[in-house]
Structure formats: C-alpha cells, structure tokens
C-alpha cells in the first residue's frame, strides 16, 4: 500500500468506509452532573456495535444547566442503528431500563427533526394509568410517577436517516504503550467534536473485525490481517515494526461531523510523533463498494 509520511508517521493512502444509519439524540438530566452521567453511561452501556448490541451509543457531550430544558446539569447521548424499527426498540428498552430507573433523571429529545421516534410515548405505560401528559406549546411531556417523584420525558425525539456510522482510524505502533498513548490522545481530540460518538470502551476497539467467519452463522470475526501475532501465517497488513494495533470507530449525526472527528483524531496522532506514539495510521474499508461515505486519510492531513 502506498504511503505518505507526516511528522515521521506513515499514513496509508486509503480511506475509511462508512454507512448511512438511523440515529437519534437524547438529553438526560439529573440532580447533578454525576447522576446525569451515571444515567447516560448506563443507557449507553453494551452499545459498542450494531453487530451484537442492536445499536451503537455513547455520550456526545456534557451539557450545562442553561443548555437543558429543565435547567439542571445534563448529558447528550447519541444512538445509532441500522433500521428505524431497531432504533425505536433500543430507545424504548434503554430509556425504560436505564434512564427511568436512575435517581432523579429526566429525558428529553436531543435532536429536532421532522420524523419522530417514540420516547415518553413508549415508556409511559410504566405509569399504569397514573401517567400524565402535559403539553406546553409544541412540546408534549409525559410525567410518570416513580418512587422519588416523577420521571419527566419528552413524548418523542427526532430521527435522522442521514447519520453516518463506521468512520474509523486504525492506529499502529511499536508497543501497546505507545499505540495506546497515541490513540487516547486522538480520542480526547475527537471528544471535543460535536455530534459524534466513539462507541467502544474508552472510544477504542482492540478487536477490529472483518465481515464473516469460517464458522457458519458468525457475522463478524477477528481482523486477522491486523493481528500482529498472526503475521507470517495470515495475509498480514502489518509492517515488521508494528506489534500493536488499535482502532477508533466514529459515528456521527452528519458526514461532516464524522470527517471533522477523523481529522481531529489523525492530527492529534501526527502531532504526537512516532517516538511516543504511533508509527503508522490506516483506515478500514470494504473496497468502497458497501458504504456510501469514504473518508480518505490524505484529505484529513494537516
């Protein structure tokens, strides 16, 4: 693969291939920032990949009290799925099990769009007939009595059909320590970009996957081309000096936000340099035939 070298780091002449997804955003508030984050972390848990979790979800950003509908501290979370039905199912289950149950929480639409997903309209039945609908202007809320007062929830939230899932950066280094240092720096830079999430633990995936498997019924399996321990046995994509590879997967509400996030990540890695960070940067794709969004690394360089 042809490469460029920037600040001593090899950059593959390749691209990340991403897909259109359905997405929504929710604003979760609570008594204080810690409890808002707790509810958000719980509802976005087990949401690393649509392959096994039904959706990909994460915290977009922390909200100040003046940015939330009820004037309390909050967190904005994003959820992505492959179909509207699946996204609806995930929103209902996760809000019902993880936000409704969290002390002092409230949940509001975090995305305004013409098309709507049920939010409070889906979980209101927990109220067993005691739930109250309240409409102020064009906003409709559900008030569901719970043991610490009321759970307040917007009736609906916006649905985006043009969200993008699967932006990615593959970070390759000489050691686990330096590779992780570079990747962590990239995650930190991407976290500052609005409207994107990195759904894997800490924003980082150590188990990049390829489509399919030698085993029947397994939809994805380890990306052997990027496993350093298989070099020599598999059709490896790794150079001899690479012994650790990590991946950052990025989902965004728009294609521009994914591009901005990848740009921020790539630039952070390049700025760190090869001694303390990565030796090489790549990106995952499927030959360009499956996903409608292509993010070429060479277009993201400083």
């Amino acid at each position, binding site marked *: 693969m042809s490469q460029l070298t920037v600040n001593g780091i090899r950059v593959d002449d390749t691209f990340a291939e991403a897909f259109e997804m359905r997405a929504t955003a929710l604003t979760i508030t609570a008594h204080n920032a810690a409890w808002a984050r707790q509810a958000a972390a719980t509802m976005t848990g087990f949401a690393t990949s649509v392959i096994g979790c039904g959706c990909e979800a994460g915290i977009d950003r922390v909200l100040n009290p003046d940015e939330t*509908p*009820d*004037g309390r501290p909050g967190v904005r979370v994003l959820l992505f799925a492959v179909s509207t039905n699946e996204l609806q199912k995930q929103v209902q289950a996760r809000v019902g099990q993880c936000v409704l149950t969290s002390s002092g929480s409230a949940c509001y639409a975090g995305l305004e769009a013409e098309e709507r997903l049920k939010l409070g309209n889906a979980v209101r039945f927990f109220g067993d007939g005691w739930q109250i609908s*309240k409409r*102020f*202007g064009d*906003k409709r*809320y559900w008030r569901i009595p719970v043991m610490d007062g009321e759970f*307040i929830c917007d009736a609906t939230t916006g649905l985006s059909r043009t969200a993008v899932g699967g932006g990615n950066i593959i970070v390759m280094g000489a050691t686990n320590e330096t590779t992780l240092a570079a990747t962590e720096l990239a995650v930190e830079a991407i976290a500052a970009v609005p409207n994107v999430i990195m759904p894997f633990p800490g924003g980082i995936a150590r188990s990049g996957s390829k489509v399919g498997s030698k085993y029947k019924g397994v939809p994805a399996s380890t990306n052997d081309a990027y496993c350093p321990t298989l070099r020599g046995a598999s059709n490896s994509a790794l150079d001899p000096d690479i012994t650790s590879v990590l991946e950052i997967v990025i989902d965004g509400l728009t294609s521009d936000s994914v591009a901005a996030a990848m740009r921020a990540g790539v630039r952070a890695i390049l700025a760190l340099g090869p001694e303390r960070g990565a030796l090489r940067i790549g990106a995952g794709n499927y030959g360009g035939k499956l996903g409608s969004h292509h993010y070429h690394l060479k277009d993201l360089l400083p």
Partner: protein
Amino acid sequence: MSPLVFTLRDAPLQRLDLAPLAPDRLVGLSESKIATIQLQTTRERVLAGDVFKIRTGEATQIRFEGGSERFDRIGAGMSQGEVIVDGAVGIQAGRLMQGGRLAIAGNAGPWAASGMTGGILAISGHAGDRLGGPLAGETVGMRGGVVIVRGNAGARAGDRMRRGVIIVEGKADSYVGSRMIAGTIIVGGRAGRLPGYLMNRGTIVTINGSDGLSPTFADSGVHELLATALMARYVETYSREVAATLRRPWRRLLGDMAVIGKGEIFYPSVAN
C-alpha cells in the same frame, strides 16, 4: 408595513359582531370593500364604514383605535396575523381562534377564548366569566393556545378546557377549571371557591390559594417537581412574574375524586 387601522367614530348603538374584521377575512380586500362589511346583530344594518374610520394597511396587522363592551366576537376564528384593540371588548373575543395574536388593552366580556385551538390571546384588563369555556350545547372548551389575563378572571375560567394554557395574573372567581378535561390553568392571585370543581384531568396552579377547596380533593403532600420547573420555563415568555413564583415546592391535591380524579391542583405548601 403599516397596520390596517379601524378608528371608532362613536359608541356603537347596538352590539356588533366583529368576527368579519379578522385578518383571514380581510386579506386582499380594498378599503371600500372592507367599509361595506356588515357588522350588525339586530335588524338595523351597520357597516364597518359606519362604525369605523378605516386607514388602509397590512390586513395581517389590524389595530382598533377605541374599544367598546359592544365589540363582540373580535378576532373570532382568526388563524394568522395580529389584532390589537386599544380598549375594551364584548363577548367571545377570540372565540374559536386558531392562530395569530389577539391583544386587548381593556377588559374582555364573557366567553373570551371560547373553544380556542391555537394562537395567543392577551387581555390587559379583566376577563369575564367562562374564559375559554364552551357555549351552551358544546362539550369542550378551549383546545389549545395560550390565554394571558393581566387582571382578574370571572367565574368558571377554563370550564371544560381540553388543552392549552390559561394564565391569570390576578384573581380568578369561583369554579376556576370546572369540569376540566386537560390543559393548564395558573392563577397568580387568589382563586375563588372550589377550584377544579368536577375536573377529570389537567393542572391548576393557585399561587395564592383559594377561598375554599372541595373536600373531594386528596392531599398528596408537598413536592418539588420538575413539571412546575418546565411550566415556569414555558410561562416565562408570557408572564415573568408568574413564572418566578412557580419554581418552588407545591402541595399537590389530586381530584376531583367526585369524578375520575386524575387532575391536580398545585396549592401553596402552607395552606391558606
């Protein structure tokens, strides 16, 4: 663009039906056409040009210079634009209003906002009885929009209200929110006797208590709820004073248990 202005020539000799002078019905009409619109409510014909001096302007911005308690049905059925009345109006102001803004500088008679479904009705003076209520034979009163009364409201404000928000900065007479189906009523002053009489659902806030509560309301204690904080945020646009008083703990009374009892009255935490 300057507004279309109707200046009252003399006090009207009979009650007038001003519903035809709403923006929806005047857009595209010439001054001479407007002058020939009939407004009488008796057999004696009265034309707009007889009652008002008309100054041509944008028909979606209508201004009445001078008011009268005989100005009935002003802004009735309007769905857009703005109507400003410099004085008092008669019955059914904003009746079946769907949108736009109707501002009345003086008092409004009974049934203001009756059956209203949208828009904003602002009354700077007092409102008569049955604000937002249904007319005889109708099953539902106000169904949407916002009514703000800077003065007091008469009896049965919000009778059979289905949706929308009524804010009364002053006092509300007896039976505010009677037979309420849903919606929100906030009374900044004191409410009269038996607020929420036979209400099914809906919310009434009596910021300064009432002259007597029905025994068919159950006290669920004092609570600081997010619902009142959200209400305050919404109300702030219309009445900062009322909004400021909403952000505090309230005694929540559930009722009316004489019917289905799914309504609520927020009452001062220390009963008065």
